[in-house]
């Protein structure tokens, strides 16, 4: 092996790397936020909605969970514009990520809802709380605690999967690698550095999630 590694040109482009890192963080954070909203609504529909709605939500979950994210991305970026829905690569990427996370997280959130003892919900009804109030105060927070580990690891998987959006030329950390590669031709070094940044992001996100848990959900269970 007579290859001399040159990391210089890669680190010289640090503003680009920083920008890419920020775009990946931003994209993942937004997708987490909206994806979780989709999941909560779908989980509610799946546990309490009428049969046709439940069937529809099940179909959505099964389709998303049994097809690759890359194909979903192509669907949102190539197929939908062909029938008149036009959006930028960034929007298409974000929407694909929201739909993807929404399906996985629905199942997780539903498991959390089902972990709440029926007696507590009945106690809420006995206090004549409305359905929304019961969901918000009795189900959501204890359920969130029960599903927190599964949910946060799904978030991290989503962040890692987001590297694929570079394929439709959405602006993210991996697309920075592609651009740098055509300028410097140090592809191996670039991908080592970018992979390292993703690893740091994974560690950072798991650290943040642990902090949030300590801060907001670490109360003793009284069950």
């Amino acid at each position, binding site marked *: 092996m007579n290859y001399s590694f040159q990391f210089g040109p890669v680190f010289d482009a640090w503003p680009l790397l920083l920008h890419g890192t920020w775009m990946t963080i931003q994209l993942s954070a937004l997708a987490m936020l909206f994806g979780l909203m989709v999941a909560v609504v779908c989980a509610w529909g799946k546990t309490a909605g009428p049969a046709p709605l439940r069937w529809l939500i099940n179909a959505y979950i099964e389709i998303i969970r049994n097809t690759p994210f890359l194909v*979903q991305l*192509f669907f949102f970026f190539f*197929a939908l514009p*062909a029938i008149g829905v036009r959006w930028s690569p960034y929007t298409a990427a974000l929407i694909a990520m929201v739909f993807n996370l929404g399906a996985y997280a629905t199942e997780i959130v539903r498991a959390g809802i089902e972990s709440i003892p029926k007696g507590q919900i009945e106690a809420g009804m006995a206090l004549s709380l409305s359905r929304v109030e019961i969901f918000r105060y009795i189900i959501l927070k204890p359920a969130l605690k029960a599903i927190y580990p599964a949910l946060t690891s799904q978030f991290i998987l989503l962040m890692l*999967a987001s*590297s*694929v959006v570079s394929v439709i030329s959405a602006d993210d950390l991996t697309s920075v690698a592609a651009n740098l590669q055509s300028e410097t031709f140090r*592809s191996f070094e670039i*991908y080592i550095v970018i992979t390292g940044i993703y*690893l740091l992001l994974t560690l950072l996100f798991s650290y943040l999630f642990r902090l949030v848990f300590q801060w907001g959900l670490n109360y003793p269970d009284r069950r």
Partner: protein
Amino acid sequence: MRTFGYSDFWFLVEAAQWTVALSLMAFIGGGIVGLIVALSRTAENAVARTFSMWFIQVFRGTPLLLQLFLVFFGAPVLGLDINPWLAAAVALTLNSGAFLGEIWRGCIEAIPRGQWEAAEALGLSYWNKMRDVVLPQALKIAVPPTVGYLVQIVKGTSLAAIIGFTELTRAGQIINNATFQPMVVFSIVAAIYFVLCWPLSLLAAYMERRLAATASR
């Protein structure tokens, strides 16, 4: 430009065979790597434990796409001749090895301590203890999550399209470029993946329910 026809559909189905072949490669390779990783993770040797912990951390903590790029662009640097098929097989093997290793570690650790101690009290060697006592019991609880993970492997093979290996997703791109009917093409591509993955998902869920039923009895 031409419209999407019967021959295009068959082109996609034939490409799906490569998706299946790549998935099998990744599952067999990943199974071997995963077993080594899981055994190292649960070993008494501190070096093996630390090394396998980092292996899992790196391969589960970085995107599969980047691992694919590293193998594809890194092999020529090391003086190795590589094609997209081999690069995809290697990257998917290492990636599934890390995930399966972590799944199986959990299964091995779920075997009650008493079983390990009983095997040791009988004077069994490490290999006998693992082969005759721990692994057969771990296997029983490992099957449902492993079948579930197969779905992830099949979906993961789609990334091989990005480095130019003609499996199902790449075939979809090629047909789309020729016909420009993305709605039809990508719906069919998605449907073929669904046909491959859904039975596996259902099987995994069924096995999980059955295992839970036997465990609660």
